[in-house]
């Protein structure tokens, strides 16, 4: 028998280590030390209910356990085999105690659809993919379904593009299928570029065949015999695994002519990108594949009409494709039963920032930010206070505490001033300055703008400069008006989605954290204490013992004072490096 004690950060904070100690002591006392092991584990993702203890092998789950509960768990459960009722998880819906984790419906917040094979199969072995129903969907398509049937299934499933904008996939396929041409193309957009996002890379590295199969299904649906995967050269492992997967699929005849004995032929090639964020925009992506400069052109014409080499092309993102074979295999009814009214299925997020369980998660649409951050994510690092979460990467917005209970789907996120994006989710705590956060994202867009249209090329740079100006304490109230106007005009006039969304981080932080902007501008103060230029180091006379440690450590000799006398920091000279603060053993250096 094993007693698993949650060692996740928030359970540790609520004394889970002590619980483990108590359990061990109790077991020793009862002479069970050798038969029953106490093991600390990672986070169960049930942080609100912590600390958590799980009894194996019978899967009993105890929540909100106190160290003093150790005795009763050992006496009752371990020895007598009777679960301790009062420590069981209460199902919030029914109010009943639930003993096994299997019965705890809401406990597992994640459902893995796009990631269904990631971490299970060997991505370099096609047989393992086939063993998990792989290529059954394309088999079903070519043997049982017409292309119209496939499009119908996709439309009914409610799947929307996972690349960011959320365009209905079935509809996209339908448009491409209706445009006649001698050649059509299926393009997989694997130009994942949001800072901190790696959903697509994980899928390609962990389950490349699911994407290949889906592209073939799409080819079957729209009448294309050629597929292209546009992948950034910075993803060498994903490229290698794709190459292996394509070779294996060709060897089996699952790519190539007359797939599974049908009339349908389809093959896939790779196209490498040099890693430009803007090439995630489909027209820019297509230009880049054609060997031209990766910059967008006006839409219409949409790629479905005139795409790669002027031919109708259907561009979908990796994660979208990864969801397709399952939908064909299990039916649209199953898929559309997951999620919200207008956003079906699941979404993969790369959870990052000031959060305990940084990682890749896949959650059903409609889950709340609170569930993601505080349950799956294990809460904020170091017990700090949650401040904001950025969704949608550099195109998205910063959401606050007020939005924590908003069910996440494409439309709700837009309604609260952010967007789904491709799935980056960056969590910020009280130490993060929101003006600096906006500046961080703008720095990225300035770097990644293609430079084609003036508002994006120059405007974003001007926003970035003005944000820098403000974080240095030089901003004025008039600057804030100007900032807002520039943001609105860039959104309103830019050529492609990059410029049309790049001011979002600024606008949403201005909307939700205006007080911070005002503090920077009117009080020349950074409330989060992160803008270096606005920090002021002073020495509290009463606390200073005159040990001279600070003065000796100051790299610019800004600190003066006699030995055993209070010291003084010359603000003119101070470069705000913080060396004095770190050296002072008496807490005499004050930062404000």
């Amino acid at each position, binding site marked *: 028998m094993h007693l698993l004690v949650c060692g996740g950060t928030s359970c540790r904070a609520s004394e889970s280590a002590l619980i483990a100690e108590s359990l061990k002591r109790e077991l020793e006392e009862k002479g069970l030390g050798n038969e029953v092991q106490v093991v600390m584990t990672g986070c169960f993702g049930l942080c609100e209910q912590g600390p958590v203890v799980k009894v194996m092998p019978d899967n009993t789950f105890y929540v909100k356990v106190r160290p003093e509960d150790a005795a009763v768990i050992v006496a009752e459960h371990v020895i007598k085999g009777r679960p301790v009722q009062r420590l069981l998880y209460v199902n919030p819906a029914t109010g009943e105690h639930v003993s096994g984790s299997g019965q705890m419906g809401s406990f597992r917040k994640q459902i893995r659809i796009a990631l269904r094979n990631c971490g299970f199969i060997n991505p370099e072995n096609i047989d393992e993919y086939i063993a998990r129903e792989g290529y059954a969907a394309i088999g079903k398509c070519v043997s049982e379904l017409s292309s119209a049937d496939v499009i119908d299934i996709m439309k009914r499933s409610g799947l929307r593009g996972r690349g960011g904008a959320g365009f209905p996939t079935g509809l996209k396929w339908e448009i491409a299928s209706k445009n006649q041409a001698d050649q059509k193309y299926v393009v997989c957009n694997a130009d994942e570029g949001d800072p901190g996002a790696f959903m697509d890379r994980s899928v390609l590295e962990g389950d490349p065949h699911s994407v290949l199969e889906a592209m073939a299904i799409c080819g079957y649906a729209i009448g294309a015999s050629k597929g292209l995967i546009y992948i950034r050269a910075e993803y060498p492992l994903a490229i290698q695994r794709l190459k292996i997967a394509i070779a294996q699929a060709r060897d089996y005849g699952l790519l190539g002519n007359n797939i599974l004995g049908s009339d349908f032929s389809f093959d896939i090639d790779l196209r490498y990108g040099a890693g430009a964020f803007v090439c995630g925009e489909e027209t820019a992506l297509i230009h880049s594949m054609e060997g031209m400069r990766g910059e967008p052109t006006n839409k219409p014409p949409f790629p479905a009409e005139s795409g790669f080499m002027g031919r109708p092309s259907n561009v979908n993102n990796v994660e979208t494709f990864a969801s397709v074979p399952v939908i064909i295999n299990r039916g649209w009814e199953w898929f559309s039963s997951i999620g919200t009214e207008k956003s079906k299925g699941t979404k993969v997020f790369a959870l990052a920032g000031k959060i305990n369980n940084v990682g890749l998660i896949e959650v059903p649409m409609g889950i709340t930010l609170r569930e993601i951050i505080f349950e799956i994510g294990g809460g904020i690092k170091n017990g700090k206070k949650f401040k904001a979460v950025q969704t949608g990467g550099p195109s998205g917005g910063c959401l606050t505490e007020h939005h924590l209970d908003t069910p996440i789907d494409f439309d709700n996120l837009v309604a609260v001033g952010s967007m789904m994006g491709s799935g980056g989710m960056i969590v910020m705590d009280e130490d993060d300055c929101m003006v600096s956060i906006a500046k961080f994202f703008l720095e990225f867009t300035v770097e990644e703008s293609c*430079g084609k249209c*003036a508002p994006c090329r120059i405007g974003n740079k001007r926003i970035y*400069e*003005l944000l820098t100006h403000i974080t240095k304490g030089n901003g004025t109230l008039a600057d804030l008006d*100007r900032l807002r106007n520039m943001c609105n005009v860039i959104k309103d*006039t830019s050529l492609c989605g990059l410029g049309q969304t790049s001011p979002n981080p600024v606008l949403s932080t201005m909307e939700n954290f205006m007080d911070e902007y005002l503090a920077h501008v009117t009080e020349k103060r950074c409330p989060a204490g992160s803008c270096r230029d606005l920090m002021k180091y002073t020495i509290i006379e009463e606390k200073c013992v005159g040990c001279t440690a600070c003065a000796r450590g100051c790299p610019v000799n800004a600190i003066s004072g006699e030995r055993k006398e209070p010291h003084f920091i010359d603000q003119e000279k101070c470069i705000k490096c913080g060396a004095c603060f770190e050296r002072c053993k008496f807490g005499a250096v004050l930062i404000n």
Partner: protein
Amino acid sequence: METIKLTIDNKQIEVQKGTTILGAARKMGIDIPTLCHMKLDDLNIENKPGGCRICVVEVQGRRNLSPACITKCDEGAVVRTHTPRVMNARRTVMEFILSDHPKDCLICPKSGNCELQDMAIRLGIREIPGQEIAEMSTYRKDTSPSIIRDLDKCIMCRRCEMMCNEVQTVGALSAVNRGFMAVVAPAFEQNLEYSPCTYCGQCVAVCPTGALTEVDHTGDVLRAIADPSKTVVVQTAPAVRAALGEEFGMKPGTLVTGKLVSALKELGFDYVFDTDFAADLTIMEEGTELLTRLGKFLKGEKDANIPILTSCCPGWVNFFEHNFPDLKDVPSTAKSPQQMFGAIAKSYFADKINVNRKDMVVVSIMPCLAKKYESQRPEFSVDGNPDVDFSISTRELAHFIKQANIDFNNLPDADFDRPLGESTGAGVIFGNTGGVIEAAVRTAYELYTGKKLSRLDFDELRGMEGVRQATIDFDGLPLNIGIAHGLGNARKLLDEVRAGRSKFHAIEVMACPGGCIGGGGQPLHHGDSSILKARAKAIYEEDKNKPIRVSHENTYIIQLYREFLGEPNSEKAHHLLHTHYFDKKAKIIVRQ
């Protein structure tokens, strides 16, 4: 033709399907401001990257503002071109553009003729908010023999890139770098000299700002005139007289030949001659060469080198040296009129007036920037002394005349000096596309058949179509003539020659759309192609009014052969009037 009804600024209009909002608005007399857009109607040239975003308008129902230049009219659309939202956006975008543009208008070569300056005036920009914290993008200045690139002034309108790649298919210029540092430059930001640039100057002809300008030689010319030890001889190309008047407010197409001569005399040139004289000389040489090759061809000789290609356009010569070096024996070996003039002036004429060639300065007034480079080719000099010392453009001459406070509009007409100022109508039409071959046909016909032409106007060789062809009956011998203007069109004919599929006996190529009248050194057309047409008309008018219209009847040409050269294609003529070509493919860094 399907039509569409829409409303612009509360007025209804019906337009053809496919019309842009800009096109529809212009039709109604609504002048939506544009910056990057440029359309040369009859030449089938349009630049519409949708990059500057100055032309944005509000289309009801669309989330963002739409660029009028590339947004097609939709049925029932309601468009408004001057709402406060539109005007604020336009102004803000203009402020962005200006914030990254040097403010040295006072000393900019484009001042007064700058589309950006005009737009700033039109939009009433009086200050650039935030200029004090705005970084400007700066680039290395590049000076080539013909063109100066000062890309600090580039606004990324991409017109030059479009001309260089789509129209000329030269491929010297393209957008490089990303975001704020994006700019149009040769590959790897090399100097123009190391690119396949032909110096055709079409980039300069369309640049809205001072980013691309010609190398100015007026200072050198002034110094030469001021030097009493120098005899300064000037020649003026045919296309100059049909365009110079525009710089002085005259209607496009006004012929100013007489005023031009007066002005040059006022400026202090010792002899004012006409490049048309050298054009007649070119016809003698090239026409004779044509007949010789034709004779060989008709005899079935292998080295006949038919078709013969004209060689009077230096941009074209550069183009085939770079792109078709394998065909370098195909073009006529005749030098261009500019160089023939220089060679004769510094030999025959210098002897005649008893001046050492080292004490003679030959200046040419050209509609062309490639002529600057041509005059500096080492093979066109004797012991380091160039046949043509300085080549200045029509624009430079206009500035020169203005600097000298000459009242151009009220100048009396004057006549060219003799002997090198006498010319025929055949020499004049060198300025138009099709003109060189028409002049050659006039002479070749009469020399070949021994008969007088009954008509001198070959309308079948005239026009603005990019590639034209005609068959001229040489007394039973059908002579197939091909004509191309614009290097992209020339490439099409050259590809046929290379493949051995060309049906032509002779091909005329001019690098610039419209021929020399649309040259890179002409007054700027600012996208108005009617100006080019007016100039072409004027040239044919001048031809019509000339008493002699075939080159071989030019009395001074006859005298030149009698006194000095002997006969066309004589050894002396070969030495002075013919050249050879080089393989410059290896010099193209981008391609190899």
